[in-house]
């Protein structure tokens, strides 16, 4: 136990240390690289908190996909001059006081949370058999709080629309700029050829086992997304035109299927977003399959950014 405690303390110090380094780093690129490493460390913290589903999500999305997004942004923004004046000592002092205050109030609030803690774990488990699932986290996402998840998928596709909406008018309908350089590294091309099919299998498998074990639509979709981005980085394929009908259908498939089956709830099971008794699991997996597709399409589109006319040059 002492060993675990020491490990937890060391991990905590490491996470806070890397976070501080990220924030203090002078160059943006360095800060971003620090942030990616920090995302992986956080995934370990999640494992220690008995949250394997979150750990997978954090590693794939928080560390991985966000990392690609921020690194490509920093290489494109890094050379621009900063125009805003650096903050004065008074502002820095004020910010330090406020931040320290917020952190200590928060730490105190967490430590003095009531004991024994309230929990929905037994209740979530009691309803688990009705869903046919074995993973309670997946059950919360897709069944108990399905309304949240459906709306959150709408938020995601709306974010894509938001990203596209900042495009210059003349490039509307075209493709976003390719990821990576014009002549990719031969090693990267090799990696993409080998890894992409393997990764695709792993992504689908992660969604499939997510019904009963750690994993699920988000994590599986994120891995598929990463594979698509890898293939684009190796220039084996280029970003799609945003006017493509197929692309748009793939984008909305997840939330649309979710919404329609939610609307069919009263017919199937007597209430919106309810699943038919004894037949819940196939319906859930059907919805999740479309969600995997939509997540795999959405995440790379968010990284690619708006169409900018560089494609085909």
């Amino acid at each position, binding site marked *: 136990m002492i060993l675990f405690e020491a490990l937890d303390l060391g991990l905590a110090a490491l996470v806070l240390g890397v976070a501080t380094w990220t924030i203090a780093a002078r160059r943006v690129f360095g800060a971003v690289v620090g942030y990616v490493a920090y995302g992986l460390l956080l995934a370990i913290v999640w494992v220690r908190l008995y949250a394997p589903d979150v750990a997978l999500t954090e590693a794939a999305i928080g560390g991985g996909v966000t990392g690609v997004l921020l690194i490509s942004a920093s290489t494109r923004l890094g050379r621009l001059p900063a125009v805003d004046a650096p903050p004065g000592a008074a502002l820095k002092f004020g910010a330090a006081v406020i931040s320290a205050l917020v952190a200590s109030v928060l730490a105190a609030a967490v430590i003095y949370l009531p004991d024994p803690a309230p929990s929905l774990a037994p209740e979530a488990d009691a309803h688990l058999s009705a869903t046919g699932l074995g993973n309670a986290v997946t059950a919360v996402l897709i069944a108990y709080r399905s309304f949240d998840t459906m709306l959150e998928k709408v938020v995601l596709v709306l974010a894509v629309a938001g990203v596209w909406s900042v495009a210059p008018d003349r490039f509307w309908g075209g493709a976003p700029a390719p990821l*990576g350089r014009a002549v990719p590294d031969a090693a990267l091309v090799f990696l993409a050829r080998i890894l992409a099919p393997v990764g695709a299998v792993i992504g689908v498998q992660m969604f499939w086992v997510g019904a009963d074990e750690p994993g699920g639509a988000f994590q599986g979709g994120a891995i598929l997304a990463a594979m698509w981005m890898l293939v684009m980085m190796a220039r084996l394929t280029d970003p799609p035109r945003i006017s493509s009908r197929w692309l748009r259908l793939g984008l909305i498939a997840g939330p649309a299927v979710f919404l329609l089956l939610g609307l069919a709830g009263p017919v199937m099971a007597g209430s919106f977003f309810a699943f038919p008794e004894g037949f819940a699991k196939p319906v859930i997996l059907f919805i999740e399959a479309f969600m995997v597709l939509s997540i795999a399409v959405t995440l790379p589109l968010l990284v690619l950014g708006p169409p900018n006319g560089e494609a085909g040059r």
Partner: protein
Amino acid sequence: MSIVLDLFTVVAVGAGVFFFLAGTVALIRFPDSLSRLHGLTKADNLGLGLVVLGLIPRAASPLPALKLIVLWALVQLGSATIAQMIGGALRRREPIE
């Protein structure tokens, strides 16, 4: 039998951790990027191989053991590619994308 296996795990994982440590020392202490890369990749690959080897006897059934081996192969593939790319970038003296 189980004591032998336990001992094997302890030795193999311990050796693996040692090589990881060595790789990290190389990353921090070596003078230029190429030798850092060299030290890191060599030592870490060996370290990971030893850790995976040590963990295989702990697997309850063949499937998790197989997963460990697949994991090892994937990491090898990834690190080899990245090392190659970093090396290429260093030779071109370009900032790494």
